[in-house]
Structure formats: structure tokens, C-alpha cells
């Protein structure tokens, strides 16, 4: 768990030379990494109070970035088709770069570290490759899909891996190779995947403007929800338990929709559209440890909503479209990146209404 100290008292901003494509925090909340469409990789070390450009500007983009669960490794990948890795020594220690790993010349834009584990899953064309932080090697075996891997997500316990391509979401357990992969048929191409903590639900936002939900870790029959105004391009599960399932936020066209399950079964899911943004919503993210939802839009703003879809605060950049979002693990700092390369870091106070309820300890008040 991240230390609760405050990094900034007011908005902090900075700039890269190209559109920011991805941002990620280390698990301890001390390091922030940002990748750009101009191939830059910026690492900000808050405890040491310094920043380093791990990779300079070039003619090919980086599109995905992430820290391993134990903060020992940093990963980035993009247009070059190479997996870039650094070994981290913690705050104040200069990261050591591994030799780039070529993965077959595909544009790499889907990759995810295993929660509570050492594996890194990377979509390389139609294959999912695994890099193992324990052995520091790329596994020879790979999982083949029928189409290009468009999205990847690990279950919260790190046991199951889901990969989406056109027509299929494939589920398997990389640490249990004896178990055959499970194939979930879809009518479209999955663009965003995410597993809930509570209930082990798998959500998939699709190109055709629909959302698929599979209960019970993908074992149950999938539900399809239609009617989004455009592609279901991004999604985020709330880490706070709900009565039956946690809240799910989905971005589509100019809106985000908060889904909540009121009754068991597919018909029990109720959508709450969040109508405010004047341009495409590119990213949605629930704050860790609360029901506060952030939505980032082309209109240059980030909106903060409570779990019932009531606007709490509007954060403004400098007008350029905001395309990426990442919460610090403490849930009290939010970073956003813009399409002209600007980034903003806001301290976020949790409003009382969204503070997580204290656990009930018994039937009687003390």
C-alpha cells in the first residue's frame, strides 16, 4: 500500500514533445512513467525529486507502459515491435535497461503485468508472449489467437489471463499449462478488457458499441449490453464491493456510463450515463480505494464523479484533448496526459460522499 503522504498541494504540470499515449505509477506511488507518440519515455521520481528521459524522441511511438507488481521492472513497447525493459532499484537509483526484445515486427500496444506475480503478457500480432521477471527471460511458448490481440487483462489474483481479438475472448491460466484455454465467442472486436475483484466478472468493451460481461471468471454465459453511442473504447472496474457486483465504468463517444448490478442476472444491470463532456471520452478510471470516477475527454477536461454519477469536480488542462489517465495507488493523486504532450498532476481530496464505508464489525453500535 502506498504511503498516504501528499506529493503535491496544487496542480503540477509538465510537457513532453509529443502526444502522451500511456502513463503508469509504480506500486509504491513514488515513480511515474509516461510514454509518448514520439517514442519518449519519461520517468519521474518523486521521492528523489528528479526526472529522467529514459528514451529520447524518435520516429516511432511508444504506446504502452507499466511497472511490475513488485516495482522491480518497468516495461514499454510500441511501433518498433520491441519490448523494452528496465530493472529498477527504487527511488534515487538509476534504472538499468535490458537489451530490447524484438517480438516479430508487430506494432505493440497491448501489454499487462501480472498482479501478484512476475509475468508480463504482451500481444504481438496474433500471439500473446510472456516475459518472466523471475527468470528474466521471454518464454518460448506462446498463446495463439485467431486474430490480432487487441486487449489483454489479468484477473485480480493473477491466475487467469484474458486476450481479445475479433470474434473471440480467450481465457487461460499461464501458470497451469495443462488446462486448455477457454474460448468465449463475441460478435465483434474487443477493445478494452477488465476483471472485477468482487465476483470475478470479465468485461469487454467492443468495436460495435456493445459491452460483454461474463460472470464467474468467464465460466458463466456472457451477457451483452448494447446501445452505446459509439465504440466501447475504455472501461474501469471500481475496487469497492457493491451489493452484487462492483461498479463498472465504460467510455463511449462523448459519454461515460456507470453500470451497477441491482438484481441478479443480465437484466439487473442498470446504466447511468454521465453527460457532460463536449468531446470524445478517451479514458475512464475509478480511484483506488473509493467510488470516485475520473473521465478524460477531448474537450480538455477531466471530470470527477461519485459512484452515483453526480459530478464532484471538473479539472481543466490547457485546452488540448486529454487522452490518458492514471491514479496513483493512494487514490489521492491523478495524472492525465494530453495529445500535445502536456501532462497534469492533481491532488484529489476524497469528498465525504465517496469515502469507502468502514467495515461493519457487528450488529450493534458501540
Amino acid at each position, binding site marked *: 500500500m502506498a504511503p498516504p503522504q501528499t506529493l503535491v498541494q496544487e496542480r503540477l504540470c509538465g510537457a513532453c514533445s*509529443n*502526444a502522451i*499515449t500511456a502513463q503508469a505509477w509504480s506500486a509504491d506511488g513514488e515513480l511515474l512513467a509516461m510514454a509518448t*507518440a*514520439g517514442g519518449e519515455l519519461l520517468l519521474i521520481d518523486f521521492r528523489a525529486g528528479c526526472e529522467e528521459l529514459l528514451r529520447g524522441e524518435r*520516429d*516511432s*511511438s511508444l*504506446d504502452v507502459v507499466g511497472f511490475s507488481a513488485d516495482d522491480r521492472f518497468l516495461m514499454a513497447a510500441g*511501433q518498433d515491435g520491441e519490448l523494452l525493459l528496465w530493472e529498477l532499484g527504487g527511488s534515487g537509483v538509476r534504472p538499468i535497461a535490458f537489451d530490447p526484445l524484438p517480438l516479430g*515486427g508487430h*506494432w505493440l*500496444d497491448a501489454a499487462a503485468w501480472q498482479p501478484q506475480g512476475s509475468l508480463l503478457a504482451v500481444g504481438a*500480432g496474433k500471439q500473446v508472449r510472456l516475459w518472466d521477471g523471475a527468470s528474466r527471460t521471454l518464454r518460448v511458448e506462446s498463446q495463439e489467437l485467431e*486474430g*490480432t490481440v*487487441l486487449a489483454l487483462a489479468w484477473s485480480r489474483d493473477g491466475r487467469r489471463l484474458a486476450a481479445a481479438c*475479433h470474434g473471440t475472448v480467450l481465457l487461460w491460466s499461464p501458470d497451469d499449462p495443462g488446462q486448455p484455454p477457454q474460448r468465449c465467442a463475441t*460478435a*465483434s*472486436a474487443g477493445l478494452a478488457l477488465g476483471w472485477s475483484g468482487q465476483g470475478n466478472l470479465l468485461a469487454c468493451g467492443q*468495436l*460495435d458499441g456493445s459491452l460483454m460481461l461474463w460472470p464467474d471468471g468467464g465460466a458463466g454465459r456472457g451477457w451483452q449490453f448494447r446501445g452505446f453511442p*459509439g*465504440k466501447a473504447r475504455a472501461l474501469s472496474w471500481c475496487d469497492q464491493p457493491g451489493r452484487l457486483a462492483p461498479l463498472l465504468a465504460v467510455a463511449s*463517444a462523448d459519454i461515460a456510463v456507470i453500470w451497477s448490478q441491482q438484481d441478479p442476472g443480465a437484466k439487473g444491470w442498470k446504466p447511468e450515463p454521465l453527460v457532460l463532456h463536449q468531446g470524445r471520452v478517451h479514458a475512464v478510471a475509478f480511484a483506488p480505494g473509493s467510488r470516485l470516477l475520473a473521465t478524460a475527454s477531448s474537450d480538455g477536461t477531466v471530470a470527477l464523479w461519485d459512484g452515483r454519477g453526480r459530478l464532484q469536480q471538473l479539472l481543466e488542462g490547457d485546452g488540448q484533448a486529454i*487522452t490518458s489517465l492514471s491514479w496513483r495507488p493512494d487514490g489521492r493523486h491523478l495524472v492525465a496526459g494530453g*495529445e500535445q504532450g502536456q501532462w497534469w498532476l492533481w491532488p484529489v481530496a476524497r469528498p465525504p460522499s465517496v469515502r469507502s464505508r468502514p467495515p461493519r464489525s457487528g450488529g450493534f453500535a458501540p
Partner: protein
Amino acid sequence: MASPRDRLPVTVLTGYLGSGKTTLLNRILTHEHGMKVAVIVNEFGDVGIDNQLVIEADEEIFEMNNGCICCTVRGDLIRIIGNLMKRRDRFDHLVIETTGLADPAPVIQTFFVDEDLRDQLKLDAVVTLVDLKHVEQHWDSVEVQEQLAFADVLLLNKIDLVDVEACLAIQQRTRAINPLARVIPTCQADAAMDQILGVEAFSLERALAIDPEFLTSDHDHEHDGAIGAVAFIEDRPMSYKKLGQWIDGLVTERGPDLFRMKGIIQFAGETNRYVLQSVHMLVDSAMDRPWRDGETPSTQFVIIGRDLDEAALRAGFEACVA
């Protein structure tokens, strides 16, 4: 959404194997037209790979399941162009090369259907290369016919390898399939850049340019399943309601066989002309500028497709006169 001026123009390059696509691509990449052109190819092959703006994509066809049976798009292009557009400031034009055996429709439809691509890019033209020396051998292949049918610009390439009669004969046969395309005979794909890039063939406002010869000559379809074109000219104003219903019915019933339609329409009681184009079942239309002084209002309508029954289509069209 970007205004049409700010949207990135896209040229789709098609042509059967060996027709000269790579030669043309290298010309586009090395020509000093003052534009930064990004190119998406199927395989690097002989295209200048040291050029950082050449990107490889594996053709991946997605069915859209949007109620339109023939609506397929190129999923790989949605993903790669989506990523590429974050570097929008680095180039002024995008060229997409298709494989020699590709149906151009999914590429074109991608730019009509995908919400992100539609907002940020605009189709400029479909440029098809024809190998004058060898095209006869593949003439009946579906791929060649489709590539001819979808073209806005037809480069009759390798003119140095055939005599004038052979060139004219092929030109006439291509005309029967596609009377709308601009035909340019070339040697080593040496067409002027302004005839290939910045053509604005998909701009609705651009006037129809039907080869006048096409309207006066008879066209016999070569065989069942053949691809051809029909064109209608009507001086009497049309009924908005009737024509709309006719076109709706036509694309619903015959969508997969209708490759492209283009029309400039004079509606009864309207002072402005109406413009329309379609690719399979995707119809794009709008009220356009007023008829100009000295311009005789009339309707021109061209259909390019497979197994077109000219008499039945003409009867259907004429029944739409107001």
C-alpha cells in the same frame, strides 16, 4: 471532429500482382512534392524501408454486424491508423497499399464506418494500376474486376510494352466497367503526382465526370456475374420521396453487388442540387450548392456493380421522375 480541411487525406492504392504498385509507392515516397507521405503496406518488400513513415499491416477483415451484410472493414487499419494519428503532425498524406488479390471495398468502408477514422481522415481517391501487358490473362478474375470497378484513377501502366491498339482496347474495356475513373496511361507508373494525390474523388461536391462516350455507346455484359456500369441522365426533376425509396430498396436488395454509385440529382421544387455516393450499402448524400446560371439542371446517376440489369434499373430510375 476535425473540419474537412483538417482531415488527413487517404489514397488507396490497388492493382493486381505485378501491376507496378511498388514502383508507384517508391515514386510517391521519393518525389519532391513537399508533402510528408506515410505509407501503410502489406509487406515491406522493395518499398524504401529506411523511410520511417512506411508501416506494415497484416490485412485483417472484420465483419461489422451492423445490419449490413456486406459491411466489412479492415480491423488492422483501425488499430494502426488510430495509433498513427497520435503523430498526426508528422505527415500530410496517407497512402494505403492493398495486396494484389485484395477487394478494395473493406478498405474504403473502413473510412466510412469507423467513428475515429471518419472524424480524422478523408478518402482522397482509389488509385488502381493496370498492367497493360498482362491484364488480359487475369481479366475475368474477381479481384481485377473489383479493383477496376472501385477506381477513381486508373493508371494503365507499362504502356511501353504494348502497341496503341492494345492499349485502346483495354481502355475501352475498363470504361465499360468504370466510366467514372480518370484514365492515365503511364510507363513505370510515372503519372504526375497531382493526378494521384489530392484528387478529392470522394468529395461529394466534386462534379461527376462521366466519360461522355460511355453514355452514347451500348454496353453488352460479357457474361453472368460480370461487373459493369450503367448511367442515366434525366432532364425532368426527380421526386425526393420516390428516389429515396428506390435507392433504399436497391441497396437493401442488391448491396453486395453494388460497388459504387454516384449521382447528382435535381429534385422537384429544389433550387440546390443534391449529391450522392455509395459503396455497397453505405450511402453518403447531401444537399449541395444551387444550380449555377447557365447550368442546365439535370440528374446524372451512375451505378457500378455486378450483374446489373440495365433495363430494369432504368425503369426503376425513371419511375422516380416527379
